[in-house]
């Protein structure tokens, strides 16, 4: 569809400075015209169609992505590009371009572009309410945080405008964000205007105006750019809390249903046999299809010495065996005015997937030659509580929320660092 045919034939004028043709498409709404070629700024008289020269911008920005006269359909509405303005923050070097869009039924809108990030702004009919906390404002169930406060300088412009583009320098601007939305408050001596903005993907801008030119490169994170595949922080907290809760509950349930059972416990003679025969424990029986046991050693006699117990868990019927090797050493003393200690007198090992049957332990003790151990306590426990597994799974369950949180944090740091 030829959209231009829907508007009256534009007023055709000429720049008095460079003779470049100038078209005025917004008629009585237009107050100011800036020549696209020489950046001369004119006051426009809509009655007489007369241009009065006001000033000239330095004309440093002559390659905008959208040009006056371009038309397209953005966010479901037809727009005519009527002009663009290059602005710079007074206190910083940040510079951006605002493209002015016009629709005769819905009025003016702006498409701003900073570092390749595009935001569509429209004047609001209903204003946000202050939340009375940290300057946050509330609008349509979103809380908007203050992102920036500034005044701007207008560096360059082209096209037709409802006011002298330079007048925009008087506005005190405050931006609030709740990505992908942004609210902008512009306060002047005699006017307060709120704009609602939303982030627009660069590809959508290109498609809307059917442009074949390459898009300006996007860098950093845009002020109201949404994070892809983002999970809201509250949802993330819920996931983390539910994960931990679920694992704790599962562990408690398992502990309640399958409490550990001591198969045997007691002192065991640890005097090695002369013929290097193994020391034998008494037999114990396992019922389940796949059983888990913990063999636990406590050698209280170890004191500034060491003790080693090598051994096997043997299935009496099949002779199949599983090895273990306990090393305990415990040293302590007083040195340099301080007590110190190192090591301990306990060790243990867990065996899993043991078939049902009768078992016994075969053990080969070796003591520190300076302090021989005669007895040590051996315990075999069925269905031991495996806290290491619990904590491993707990950390694993927290991994997803942690990764998402880290990603979110990195994204927001980049956004606020701009």
């Amino acid at each position, binding site marked *: *569809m030829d*959209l231009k045919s*829907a*508007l*009256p034939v534009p007023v055709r004028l000429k720049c008095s400075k460079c003779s470049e043709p100038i078209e005025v498409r*917004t*008629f*009585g*709404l237009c107050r100011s015209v800036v020549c696209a070629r020489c950046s001369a700024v004119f006051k426009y008289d*809509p*009655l007489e169609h007369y241009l009065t020269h006001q000033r000239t911008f330095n004309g440093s920005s002559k390659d905008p992505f959208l040009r006056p006269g371009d038309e397209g359909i953005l966010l479901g*509405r*037809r727009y005519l590009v009527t002009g663009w303005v290059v602005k710079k923050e007074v206190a910083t070097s940040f510079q951006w371009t605002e493209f002015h869009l016009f*629709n*005769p*039924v*819905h*009025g*003016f809108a702006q498409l701003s572009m900073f570092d390749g990030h595009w935001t569509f702004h429209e*004047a609001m*009919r*209903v*204003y946000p*309410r202050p939340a009375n906390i940290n300057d946050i404002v509330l609008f349509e169930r979103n809380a908007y945080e203050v992102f920036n406060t500034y005044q701007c300088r207008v560096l360059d412009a082209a096209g037709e405008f*409802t*006011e002298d583009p330079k007048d925009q320098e008087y506005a005190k601007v405050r931006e609030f964000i709740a990505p992908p939305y942004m609210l902008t408050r512009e*306060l*002047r*001596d*005699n*006017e*307060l*205007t709120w704009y609602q903005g939303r982030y627009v993907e660069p590809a959508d801008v290109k498609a809307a105006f059917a442009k074949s030119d390459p898009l300006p490169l996007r860098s950093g994170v845009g002020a109201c750019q949404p994070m892809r595949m983002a999970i809201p922080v509250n949802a993330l907290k819920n996931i983390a809390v539910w994960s931990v809760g679920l694992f704790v509950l599962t562990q408690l349930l398992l502990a309640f249903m399958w409490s550990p059972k001591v198969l045997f416990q007691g002192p065991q003679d640890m005097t090695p046999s002369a013929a290097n025969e193994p020391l034998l424990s008494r037999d114990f029986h396992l019922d389940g299809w796949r059983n888990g046991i913990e063999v636990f050693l406590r050698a209280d006699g170890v004191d500034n010495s060491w003790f080693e117990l090598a051994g096997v868990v043997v299935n009496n019927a099949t002779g199949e065996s599983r090895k273990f090797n306990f090393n305990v050493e415990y040293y302590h003393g007083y040195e340099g005015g301080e007590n110190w200690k190192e090591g301990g007198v306990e060790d243990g090992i867990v065996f899993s997937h043991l078939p049902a049957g009768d078992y016994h332990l075969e053990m080969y003790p070796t003591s520190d030659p300076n302090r021989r151990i005669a007895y040590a306590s051996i315990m075999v426990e069925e269905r031991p509580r495996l806290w290491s597994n619990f904590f491993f799974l707990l950390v694993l369950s927290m991994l997803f929320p942690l990764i998402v949180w880290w990603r979110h944090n990195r994204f927001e740091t980049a956004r606020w660092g701009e």
Partner: protein
Amino acid sequence: MPLVEDLSPFKVGMTGTFKGQEFKVVGRLRVVTHHGYRNYWSLKGDGEYPWLVHSFGHYALLKPFPGVVSKNELRKAKPGSSNRMDTGGTFQVELADKDPVFAAEGEVMLPLPVPYAFEIEMGREPSDKVLVLIKADADPVCFHGIMVEYADLHFQEPLQLAQWT
């Protein structure tokens, strides 16, 4: 001052309905100030609103407002400040414009206090507006308005700007 083309979607003679009540656009007062313009379209019909105001794609229906506000207080009103109306409710000042220039066409069903010297627009949620027109030698005249969408007005004539709705 003669009227200029401002691409308004309305024309004198058009008919529409708002909440089931028919109206006809019979005239217009166009007010131009330093920061913009307003078209006060005069409506004839059964509805309670004698004015349809249009400016930069925003539309509001206006009717006289009995609220009394002090002229001196309003003269001090600044955009962003809040004003409590005698009839209750607080409105935030959005616009305070001076030195309006007028143009008109057709007939006017309810006169505005022309020529007024000062105009204050105030808003509050939801889409609730008060427009205060101050005539230099008289008490302020208030109008209460509701913001509407263009589509809410259900114009019967084929629209010249249909491709832009």
